[in-house]
C-alpha cells in the first residue's frame, strides 16, 4: 500500500470515531512526563515527549492481571475475565513497537502461546509515530532499530508539520473498529522526500554504536568474568530498569483468597530481586547482586539471541533514565567491550574460572 497523507484534522476525526467504537490509548501528559492513557479525542494526547514513562507493553501485558476467579467450595470451576475490547494505541515510538514484536516472539512465537497476552494482542492495533528528534538517551540504531522503523506497527505516522505521512494499512485499523476507512491522499514525491530527510536526520543524531554480534561472542565466554562484580557495585538491585523496559516480560503468579473466593493474579516480576530465583529449599542460584546484574545484561545481549535469534534491547534508553544509581546500559556495554575484548582479561577470566569453577 502506498503511503498516504493524513491531516491533523482527519486524524482527530478518526480518533474520535475509534474512541466511540473501542479503546484508544495515546501518550498523555502526567506530571512532567507522559503515560499511555485512554483518550476520547486527539487533543488529550501529547506527542512532545520521545518516551512514555512506562513502555507500551504495559497495555498488552499489564503489571497486574487477573487470570481467573474461583470459589474455594467449587473446585474445578473458574470464572475467566471478560474478553478484552479492541484497542488502538496511538503515538507508539518505533523502539516500543519493536519491543512488542519481540514480546510476540516470547509469548506466542514458539511452543506455548500465552493466551492472556495473545488475546489482547489480537485486538490491538499499533499506530506509531516516527521520532523526528530522538532524545540524547536513545540508541535504537545501535541495536538494529530506527527512529522511523515500522517493525511491530500497523501504521507509522511521520509528522510533516500539521500533516502526517501514513505508512501501513489504515483501512485495516478502521475495519477492526467497524468504521469506514478514510480515503487518504496519496503522498507526493515532495512528501516522501521530506520524510526521508527527517528520518535520515533523526537517525544521524544517534551516534552510539554496538557491535551486537561481537558482544554476543564476548558474552558467551564471560560467565565468571570479574567485570560483573565491578559493573554491579553501584547497582542497588531495584526493579526500575526491568519495569520500564519494553521487552522485559517476567511475571509471578499468586493466588489471593478471601472468605471463600479468590483470584489467580499475575504480576510483573524482576530478575533483579533476590527472591526471583530463590528456590523453595532456600538455595538461591543467583544470590549475589553481581549475578543478578549479569543476568539482565546477558539476557538482553546473549540469552535471547540464543532463544529467539536477536538481542532484546531496543535502545529506548529508559533503564538509564530511571536508574537511581545512574547506570547507563550504553556505558555497561562499553565497559564490557573494554574488559572482555583484551588479552589481559582473557587471563583474568581463566583465573576467575579456575577459582570459582566454570558454571553452565
Amino acid at each position: 500500500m502506498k503511503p498516504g497523507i493524513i491531516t491533523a484534522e482527519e486524524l482527530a476525526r478518526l480518533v474520535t470515531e475509534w474512541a466511540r467504537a473501542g479503546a484508544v490509548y495515546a501518550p498523555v501528559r502526567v506530571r512532567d512526563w507522559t503515560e499511555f492513557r485512554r483518550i476520547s479525542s486527539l487533543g488529550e494526547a501529547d506527542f512532545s515527549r520521545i518516551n512514555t514513562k512506562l513502555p507500551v507493553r504495559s497495555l498488552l501485558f499489564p503489571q497486574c492481571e487477573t487470570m481467573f476467579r474461583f470459589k474455594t467450595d467449587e473446585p474445578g470451576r473458574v470464572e475467566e475475565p471478560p474478553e478484552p475490547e479492541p484497542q488502538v494505541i496511538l503515538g507508539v515510538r518505533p523502539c516500543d513497537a519493536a519491543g512488542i514484536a519481540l514480546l510476540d516472539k516470547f509469548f506466542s512465537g514458539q511452543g506455548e502461546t500465552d493466551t492472556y497476552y495473545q488475546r489482547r494482542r489480537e485486538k490491538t492495533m499499533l499506530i506509531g509515530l516516527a521520532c523526528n528528534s530522538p532524545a540524547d538517551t536513545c540508541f535504537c540504531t545501535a541495536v538494529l532499530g530506527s527512529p522511523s522503523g515500522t517493525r511491530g506497527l500497523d501504521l507509522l505516522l511521520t509528522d510533516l508539520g500539521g500533516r502526517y505521512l501514513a505508512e501501513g494499512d489504515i483501512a485495516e485499523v478502521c475495519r477492526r473498529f467497524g468504521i469506514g476507512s478514510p480515503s487518504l491522499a496519496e503522498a507526493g514525491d515532495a512528501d516522501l522526500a521530506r520524510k526521508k530527510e527527517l528520518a535520515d536526520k533523526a537517525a544521524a543524531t544517534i551516534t552510539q554504536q554496538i557491535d551486537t554480534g561481537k558482544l554476543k561472542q564476548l558474552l558467551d565466554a564471560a560467565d565468571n568474568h570479574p567485570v560483573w562484580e565491578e559493573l554491579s557495585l553501584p547497582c542497588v538491585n531495584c526493579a526500575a530498569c526491568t519495569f520500564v523496559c519494553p521487552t522485559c516480560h517476567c511475571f509471578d503468579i499468586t493466588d489471593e483468597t478471601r472468605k471463600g473466593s479468590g483470584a489467580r493474579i499475575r504480576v510483573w516480576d524482576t530478575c533483579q530481586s533476590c527472591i526471583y530465583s530463590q528456590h523453595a529449599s532456600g538455595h538461591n542460584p543467583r544470590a549475589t547482586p553481581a549475578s543478578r546484574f549479569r543476568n539482565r545484561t546477558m539476557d538482553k545481549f546473549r540469552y535471547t539471541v540464543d532463544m529467539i535469534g536477536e538481542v532484546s534491547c531496543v535502545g529506548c534508553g529508559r533503564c538509564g533514565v530511571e536508574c537511581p544509581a545512574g547506570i547507563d546500559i550504553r556505558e555497561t556495554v562499553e565497559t564490557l567491550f573494554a574488559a572482555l575484548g583484551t588479552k589481559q582479561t582473557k587471563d583474568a577470566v581463566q583465573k576467575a574460572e579456575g577459582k570459582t569453577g566454570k558454571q553452565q
Partner: protein
Amino acid sequence: MSREDQLRKRARDLLAAREVVMVIGYRAGRRPGTTVPAFITRPEDTDKLIFNDRCGANLTAYLPRIPKTAKVAIVAKGCDSRSIVALLKEKQVERSKLVILGVGCEGIKVDGQLSDSCTTCGYPNPVIFDEMVGETRDMTETSDVSDRVPDPLADLESLSPDERWHSLMEDVARCIRCYACRQVCPNCYCPTCFVDTNNPQWVGKTTAGSDNMLFHLMRAMHMAGRCVECGTCHRACPMGIDLMKFNRKVARIVRDRFGTVAGIDPDEPPALAAFDPNDRQEFIK
C-alpha cells in the same frame, strides 16, 4: 586546591598507604550531568572522583553490603553521615572500619531545582567524620533556607483523617513496586524484607491501592526514629511519589513524642527500640 582535587588527593593517599581498601564516592555518569556511585580500589583511579550538587545518592546504603573485614573510606554529606550514625546505632557498621571523608553540602539539584528534601535540611555538614574535605557549609545560611520554606507538612496536616487517607492513596496509586525507594535506603538492609516474605504472604504483590499503601505505610513505620530525611528514596522513585511526605511526618511524630532526631547521636538509644517507663502511652486505653 579545589574540593574535588583535595578529595582525589586524600583518596589516592589513603589507598596508596593501604589505610583503606576502597574509597566509596561519586564519579561522572555516562549522561552529562549525572553521577554514579564509584567504588575506587586503585590509587590511579581516584581522578574519577567528583563531588557536585548532583551527587544525591546516599552512599551509606552501600556500606552494609561491603565486607566488614577491611577498612573503607566513604564520602559523606550531612545526610549520609547521619545515616552512618543510624547504622552505627544498629550495629550495622563498625566505626573502626570506616574513614569518613566529610563534605559540606550545598543541596542536591534535580533538573536544576533544589531537591525537596534539601529545602528543609538542617544538617548540610557531616555530624560525624574523620576529616573534612573542602569548606564546611555556613549554618546560618542554611537556617535561612529552612526558614524560607513554608511547613512542608502543613497541607497534609490540615486534612481530616479521611481526606489524608485519600490524598496518600492518590500518591501511592502511582507506585509500580519497583522498590527503588527501599533499595537506595541505608536503613533498608533487612536480608528479607516484609514484602518479599511469601510464606505467609504479608503484603499482596499487586499495585492495587491497598497493597501499595500497605507497603508504604509499613516501610514508613519501619523508618520511625531511623529515617534521616536524606530524600534519596524520593529522588529514586521513577514515578515521582512524594515519599518525603511519609518521611517528614514520621520524623515529626518521633521528634514530638520522643524528643529525638534520627542520626545525630550514636550513643542515644534508637527511639522505637528502647523502652522507657515514662513513655507517653495515652493511646492504650
